[in-house]
């Protein structure tokens, strides 16, 4: 026996895909912007000698260029992938993220910024619509109590079955993404704007300073990417077509025995 449930209203379906598109563009244009100064500092002004993270290129003792990722004082060689990599024109150059992963491909801070800010607007507006919907996913006390057992059942994700309503783990993750992660990414991004900072000096201060806000912004992006990967994996495991259909037409099919 199969049963159809109308799971997603139009506003959610529309903004879901707009958010997906925005996140792809924001990450790719964000990497373009990062390439302009590929270092993060845990302070208000930059402490140039002491980055927390740097992805850059250099020349080795034999005169060969190489790329590296520096975390604190540790360096990992990442030539051809990060630091010294695809320049978007068929060659290679010293740049943090490769041309095939940035928008635009070539080094172009001006257009990278325009892409980023346009889609930041779209993402921000969609986040409001989303928040209205996601507030219903606010985990209850019972959800939180059931969380450990749901976590255990997800240790073997391929055995997870889709259910008509969201399970506690889904609620916590979706709620967390919309009400914790998205606000962190949006607000830390705003804190990078000198005009916004003049209006709200407390904003960069809340993140530990303007440069520290870059860390929050970058880390928030990584966390969103991690969510994205797990999210897509779980969609794959629990029925690609059923999940996709519910996010396109709104209708979700549930087996009566579940």
């Amino acid at each position, binding site marked *: 026996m199969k049963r159809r449930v109308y799971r997603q209203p139009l506003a959610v379906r529309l903004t879901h895909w707009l958010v997906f598109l925005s996140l792809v563009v924001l990450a790719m*244009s964000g990497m373009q912007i990062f390439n302009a100064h590929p270092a993060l500092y845990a302070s208000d002004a930059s402490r140039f000698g002491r980055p927390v993270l740097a992805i850059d290129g250099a020349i080795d003792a034999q005169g060969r260029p190489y790329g590296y990722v520096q975390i604190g004082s540790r360096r990992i060689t990442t030539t051809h992938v990060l630091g010294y990599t695809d320049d978007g024109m068929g060659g290679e150059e010293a740049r943090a993220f490769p041309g095939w992963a940035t928008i635009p491909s070539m080094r172009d801070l001006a257009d990278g910024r325009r892409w980023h800010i346009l889609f930041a607007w779209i993402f921000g507006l969609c986040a409001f619509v989303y928040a209205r919907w996601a507030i219903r996913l606010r985990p209850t006390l019972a959800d939180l109590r059931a969380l450990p057992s749901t976590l255990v059942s997800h240790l073997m994700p391929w055995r997870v079955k889709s259910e008509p309503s969201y399970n506690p783990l889904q609620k916590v993750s979706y709620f967390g993404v919309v009400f914790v992660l998205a606000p962190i990414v949006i607000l830390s991004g705003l804190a990078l704007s000198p005009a916004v900072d003049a209006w709200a000096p407390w904003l960069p201060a809340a993140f530990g300073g303007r440069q520290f806000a870059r860390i929050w912004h970058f880390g928030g992006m990584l966390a969103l990417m991690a969510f994205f990967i797990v999210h897509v994996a779980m969609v794959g495991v629990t029925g690609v077509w059923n999940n996709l259909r519910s996010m396109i037409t709104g209708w979700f099919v549930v087996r009566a025995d579940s």
Partner: protein
Amino acid sequence: MRRVRFLALAGAVALAGCSRIGNALTVNPAFRRALLIPEKLDLAILGAGAPLAREYSIKDISPDFRQNGFDPPHGAQYLRWSRNEWRGYTLGVEGLVRAPHAYTLEELKTRFAAVSNITRHDCVEGWSVIGKWTGVRVSDLITAAGVLPAARFVIFYCMDDDGQGTLYYESLNMHQATHPQTVLAYALNDAPVPIKNGAPLRLKVPTQLGYKSAKYVRRIRFVEDLGGAYGSGGYWEDQGYEWFAGI
């Protein structure tokens, strides 16, 4: 493991596809118009009012005020001025004004109140430095020059060039120019502005990104409109950067 590698490869291919689509859209005239929309929204929202940029204390000042952009001017006249403590250098104030004038550095220091602010300089590239700037409020120059009501923008013409002969320039609207923290600075951290930071006189606009703070300013011109002979309102603006650099 093989499946993970396959998926990683598929992800990279998808990214590369998006990057290509992005390249095509970036030069598409219709999409370009969309890319220009946010700047107008940002200016409308953030450009009203005149909040002050945060002012820091002496201990926050960065050990080195990083230099970025073009090489310092290298013309014979500039080099001569720099060797003679800027004797002979003047700042021209011209355009839609009742009293055009060319100020020597000494005149700027004696005729106008010296104002200081310790503010953060945010480069469009992403880094920040903090420095103490001392100089003349642009609004004081506006009052002294008797700027005509028709003037809506002020253009700052500079002495440094991009290596191909194009001189740096910038512009502000009158609202931004009369902001109390908008100064033409002759001192950085209580010493004359170093050559690398824009000697003898540089603009400082702490509420916008660093490229608005034009260095090596030679003359300022009040105009009715940007565009045409005045370009997009700045060297970097002509390269596609936002004229409103508040974001």
